[in-house]
């Protein structure tokens, strides 16, 4: 799902690409950005910050959906979870265990203090979850749709679930914890902007200005001795992606998340010793077909579409060749290699095969006649693909899809509204076909459950953000239920294999190519960035990977 993030990536204006590609290799301008290196300790870490147009909104409420990104360094959760492979990094908690499939026990770290010196206790954790229960507007992860009670005993906090949901531990783990002694007097925690945050994370708010904010090291943080930077600066981004590309290319950030065309020339070559990038896949982009409509509800028709597409070409057109064609199993390779079912031919990759596609269409009752793919009722197969107009990689992919499907006789048209209309059309189920993102949580259960579980398949005209293609398959639901309830690795693997096979055979979503995570780093001041050889998390500063990475850094 995070896959959507490539949108920023993708909002590449062609002119900047041309300008950059034409000139950057000849550029000798060096990066002046980071003169602020502090004399006391590790120095300043500069991270490309939130979009601020015209200014940033001062909001450090970690439970809000509109908080500034740096809030994640001020409020540490129980644990962070890698979106590469679902691996945990402990923070407030030292670990968890399921005492039964519906009882989760987190052990809270001893001797932790809030940044104002007050001790942090399990009561703070319970208070935070109760706050989410009281204010549904804050419960954006749906904790209380799954949890029925949270209680503390000793250094443990126990969560009781409605139904078995082992993978839900990750969602609970990444909930920011707030101090009871301050938040219990906040009148309205939903609109609270928390401009003087007291947190448990490695950093505190240093200063806030309308286009930049600075965090300073929290000396009371339990692991403070291992935190390399003495301060973290977040300059605001521009609304214009071209401007952001120049900004990143100029080398003023230690860490940026930005799609750059021809990155070797536009970034790395400007200072090859310190300029690095890592663009791992962060999700799968696919063609969602509305399964409540004919002929898309016919699996043979979907097979035909899948076989008629050249995924390599689509990927090349969409993301400049940075990302390859995707496995149609829903597994992200190489991130989740350990989950890939060995029984899938060719890792679940599907190559273009027009005769096979025509055979599949024929099974669905569609035959080529005068260049048109004509169905049993004598009319040509048509399809309108909807995608947000600012997600330029999706637009490029859809354009290529329409060309390729045109060649097998399907009349394809493209609809490119603003995101809001895209969201309305897809969620209400009134679309034919839509570009969309799949997976990317690092936890296969979450990926498959959100996209395929029929409990989300609301009737057409009732909005649903998940399973909006409205797939319904009892066998899938059953595999998901098994996966949710088991703590045994072999049972987990078996159930995941079944889901992959069903995904591959039934094509509820025609998966196409991987969406990239555009991590751009400089090792001038700090090292220890995630990379292909050390993929401990995705290079995505917009979620809790920020905390994982910043606490992982070492002074260069």
């Amino acid at each position: 799902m995070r896959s959507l993030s490539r949108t920023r990536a993708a909002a590449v204006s062609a002119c900047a690409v041309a300008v950059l590609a034409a000139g950057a290799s000849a550029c000798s301008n060096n990066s002046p950005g980071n003169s602020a290196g502090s004399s006391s300790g590790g120095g300043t870490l500069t991270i490309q910050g939130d979009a601020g147009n015209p200014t940033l909104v001062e909001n450090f409420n970690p439970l809000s959906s509109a908080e500034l990104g740096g809030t994640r360094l001020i409020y540490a959760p129980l644990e962070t979870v890698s979106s590469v492979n679902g691996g945990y990094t402990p923070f407030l908690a030292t670990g968890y265990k399921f005492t039964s499939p519906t009882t989760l026990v987190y052990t809270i770290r001893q001797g932790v203090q809030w940044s104002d010196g007050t001790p942090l206790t399990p009561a703070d954790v319970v208070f935070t979850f109760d706050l989410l229960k009281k204010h549904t507007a804050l419960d954006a992860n749906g904790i209380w749709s799954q949890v029925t009670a949270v209680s503390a005993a000793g250094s443990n906090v126990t969560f009781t679930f409605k139904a078995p949901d082992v993978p839900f531990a990750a969602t609970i783990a990444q909930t920011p914890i707030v101090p009871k002694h301050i938040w219990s007097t906040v009148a309205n925690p939903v609109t609270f902007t928390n401009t003087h945050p007291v947190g448990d994370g490695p950093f505190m708010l240093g200063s806030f200005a309308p286009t930049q904010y600075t965090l300073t090291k929290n000396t009371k943080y339990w692991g403070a001795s291992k935190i390399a930077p003495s301060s973290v600066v977040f300059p605001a981004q521009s609304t214009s992606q071209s401007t952001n590309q120049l900004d990143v290319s100029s080398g003023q950030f230690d860490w940026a998340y930005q799609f750059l065309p021809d990155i070797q020339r536009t970034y790395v070559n400007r200072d090859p010793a310190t300029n690095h990038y890592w663009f791992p896949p962060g999700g799968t982009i696919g063609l969602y077909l509305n399964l409540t409509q004919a002929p898309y509800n016919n699996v043979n028709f979907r097979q035909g579409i899948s076989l008629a597409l050249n995924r390599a070409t689509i990927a090349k057109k969409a993301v400049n060749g940075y990302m390859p064609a995707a496995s149609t199993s829903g597994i992200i390779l190489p991130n989740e290699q350990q989950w890939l079912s060995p029984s899938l031919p060719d890792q679940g990759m599907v190559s273009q095969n027009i005769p096979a596609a025509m055979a599949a269409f024929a099974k669905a009752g569609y035959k080529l006649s005068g260049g048109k793919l004509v169905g049993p009722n004598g009319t040509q197969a048509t399809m309108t693909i909807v995608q947000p107009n600012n997600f330029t990689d999706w637009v490029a992919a859809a354009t290529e899809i329409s060309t390729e499907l045109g060649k097998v006789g399907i009349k394809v048209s493209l609809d490119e509204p603003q995101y809001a209309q895209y969201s309305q059309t897809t969620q209400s189920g009134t679309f034919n076909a839509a570009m969309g993102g799949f997976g990317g949580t690092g936890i296969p259960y979450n990926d498959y459950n959100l996209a395929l579980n029929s409990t989300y398949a609301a009737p057409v005209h009732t909005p649903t953000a998940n399973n909006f293609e409205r797939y319904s398959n009892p066998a899938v639901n059953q595999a998901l239920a098994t996966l949710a309830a088991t703590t045994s690795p072999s049972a987990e693997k078996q159930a995941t294999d079944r889901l992959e096979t069903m995904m591959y055979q039934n094509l509820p979503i025609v998966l196409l190519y991987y969406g990239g995570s555009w991590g751009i780093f400089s090792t001038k001041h700090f090292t220890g960035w995630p990379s292909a050889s050390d993929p401990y998390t995705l290079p995505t500063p917009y979620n809790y990977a920020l905390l994982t990475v910043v606490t992982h850094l070492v002074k260069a």
Partner: protein
Amino acid sequence: MGYILRKVVLFIITLWAAITLVFILPRLMPGSPVDAALGKLASAGVPITNAERAAIEAQLGAPHTSLLAQYGDYWNSIATLRFGTSYSFPSQTVAHTIGVALPWTVFLVGTTTVLAFIIGTLLGVYAGWHRAKLADSSVTIGATFFGAFPPFWLGLLLLYWLSFKYGWFPIKGGYDPGTTPNWSLSFVGDALYHSVLPGLTLAITTLSGWVFGMRNNMINTLGEDYVTFAEANGLRSRTVAMLYAARNALLPNVTAFGLALGALIGGTVLVEGVYSYPGVGNLLYLAVTNHDFPLMQALFLVITLSMLVAIFIVDLLYVRLDPRVRSST
């Protein structure tokens, strides 16, 4: 003063129509504010789930009242000058949000509009007076060349060469990141430095309009009998050009200038976007992409009002500038 009374009545009717349109237009956009907020989160990399959707619905308190009731609230908000809470800046009042952005745009676009008007008009007078000579063709060709640049494209070019490649100007923002706007000398200097490129972009791309308007008016006016008469009387050519021809040729340009001043509040969305300038143009872009009805309504209202007031003032000014208007009342 029947002329003025008529103009006032017309002004009031136009105002009502404009205010009502400002209410209707944003609501015709497909997709709800909740959908737009999901889009913002999706672009920021947050997974979109039903739980997220429910939380946002609860946060925004999406309007469930009827359109008519919303229209009533809207008039109420105009009467009290309280435009509610914007979805994009929930911790500020809408008036405050706009108040912060407005001075930047007024300063940037105001200065460049006045400069472009003065320089462009003078160039137009010059080209018109020397029509069909080398001076005329060089001004005309130059203006055509620069006027043909789309502003954001020129902005990107300047940004790439002068900021990125040579580092003479900052890449983004209206002032140094990390500083808070104040009236200190260093801040004002810094803000001026940051406004050079956006100002240049706007000035270059708007100049040509004034040049052409004025040149063509000049050429028309120069054909008039009274100009020939003045020349025949042996007046200095400078006097003829400025006082006889330009004085009359200026009238249509003054109308256009009024409109341009009225329009400047709307900012220049693309140029402000390219330079990440903290003005109304960027705010408007944000409001539209977020389906932020309260902010959009207030912004459109400010834009419409400033436009109407500018037109009204130009109308009144005409009484002074053009005796023919006075005599026809």
